[in-house]
């Protein structure tokens, strides 16, 4: 069974990003880029499924600019067997990525797609669900535990108030939550090995997908700042302030 893992190249999660002064977007010049953390969890999960013998091949996919090749090399250093880059300079939105992944899923005959529940740049949380809809297959989002047996996946999901366990038939889409696993550190020998692994490059046109954006960003601005209040000397003063000034208790 083949598994596709989708990985997105995003601003490293440790970088504090700033809005450009002209309000056209974020100032990303020269900032460190990394694999979206939720996608790293997805690569780790797929690799573990291969190590357990549940899947035979893990194919990492990224959609975007040429530099996504680095992200794919990281995925292969974690454990993906090979990689596919769908290269384009167009701003890709979730629906477009879902269509590209659907085309690759069909092309590869993949039975399972694992990807992060959301990317930490646009915070959309859409691509996995959209892919499942386009492919007319079941989905298990926000996964914290995955078990695969007899053509079915049993997935425990993080939902409001607790956990829910679903049984879904394959093929299916799974999106990862933070607790699913802790990705391994990539070792130097594995980084070297990853350089020799196969990487295919396509254009969206090769896959017959129209990736034109549907949503236009008119403006990006700083969130309203919340000013600091006052320091109180002790608990008694805090209680007084809450009762008489803020009137919230």
């Amino acid at each position, binding site marked *: 069974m083949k598994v596709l893992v989708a990985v997105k190249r995003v601003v490293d999660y440790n970088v504090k990003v700033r809005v450009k002064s002209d309000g056209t977007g974020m100032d990303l010049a020269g900032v460190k880029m990394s694999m979206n953390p939720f996608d790293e969890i997805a690569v780790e999960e797929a690799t573990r499924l291969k190590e357990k013998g549940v899947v035979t091949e893990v194919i990492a996919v990224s959609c975007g600019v040429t530099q996504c090749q680095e992200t794919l090399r990281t995925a292969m250093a974690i454990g993906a067997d090979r990689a596919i880059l769908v290269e384009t300079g167009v701003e890709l939105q979730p629906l477009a990525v879902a269509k590209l992944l659907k085309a690759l899923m069909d092309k590869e005959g993949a039975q399972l797609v694992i990807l992060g529940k959301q990317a930490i740049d646009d*915070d959309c949380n859409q691509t996995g669900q*959209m892919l499942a809809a386009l492919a007319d297959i079941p989905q298990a989002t926000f996964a914290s535990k995955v078990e695969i047996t007899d053509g079915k996946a049993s997935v425990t999901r993080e939902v409001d108030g*607790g956990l829910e366990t679903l049984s879904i038939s394959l093929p299916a889409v799974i999106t990862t939550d933070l607790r699913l696993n802790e990705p391994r550190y990539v070792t130097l020998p594995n980084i070297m090995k990853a350089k020799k692994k196969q990487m295919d490059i396509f254009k969206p046109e090769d896959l017959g997908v129209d990736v034109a954006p549907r949503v236009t960003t008119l403006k*990006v601005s*700083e969130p309203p700042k*919340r000013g600091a209040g006052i320091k109180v000397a002790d608990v008694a003063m805090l209680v007084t302030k809450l009762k008489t000034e803020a009137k919230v*208790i």
Partner: protein
Amino acid sequence: MSILVIAEHDNASIKGATLNTVTAALACGSDANNAEVHVLVAGSASQAAASAASQIAGVSKVLHADAAYFEHGLAEEVAAQVLAIAANYSHILFPATASGKNIAPRVAAKLDVAQLSDVTKVISADTFERPIYAGNAIATVQSGDSVKVLTVRTTGFDPAANTGGSATVEALAAVASSGKSTSMGSEIAKNDRPELTAAKIIVSGGRALGSAEKFNEVMTPLADKLGAALGASRAAVDAGYAPNDWQVGQTGKIVAPQLYVACGISGAIQHLAGMKDSKVIVAINKDPEAPIFSVADYGLEADLFTAVPELVAAL
């Protein structure tokens, strides 16, 4: 054209997030003539939830689809029911909850339209504000699609009144089940506390608590005294001091209570993103440099292990 809100419910009652979503729906329709707001309740033995939805102020019609396979709100089933009626609507809104986020993109993809996540403000019928980069920036976005599918961040909108409405309830034929996904059960924590996202007061603990035992010993009496929900920072959750569904922050729950009391929480950006819309923020932390003080209305520089019990005694 009318506007559709997908109700979040437990078959017996309507969840609070639905009310904020109705307010957002009314804002989407404010430019248009005769734009009605309809609410879809897809459930199992969910007559009570449908009746409750009909009481929401501003709602003209409740569409009620009832079938056993809607019991757990599975994305595949609910999305199919939404799609069956989608052609009648200019906007389709879901609360940006675990459930809404699970279903909305499925509906959008089937309609071949974009979906806009976590909308915090409706500027016009096609233009919206939403946070990006963990709340570090606000994007103003315009959808060029014929149907707008949105998830609504509840903290951006006041709840609609859950009484005073008199919507008609119309029964819909339930669409056939896909049968590809089955709920095998759930572990939903049961407690007497208010739900985190609906609580008026939240007391939240951080890594400084040091252990699950201390977390419980120090934070629970304060929550009890204030009738508050309990929350936690991601650091406290990752360390195993508190369950994951207590997590407040960009990757956890987004909350905006009347009063938020942060105890031993340093105030990482991702935590602030989840609680900075609270009306009043209190921070108790012994580190004077903790970033949480930069957003707190009242900061108390003190060791939480003495200050919190003192606070419990003083209330």
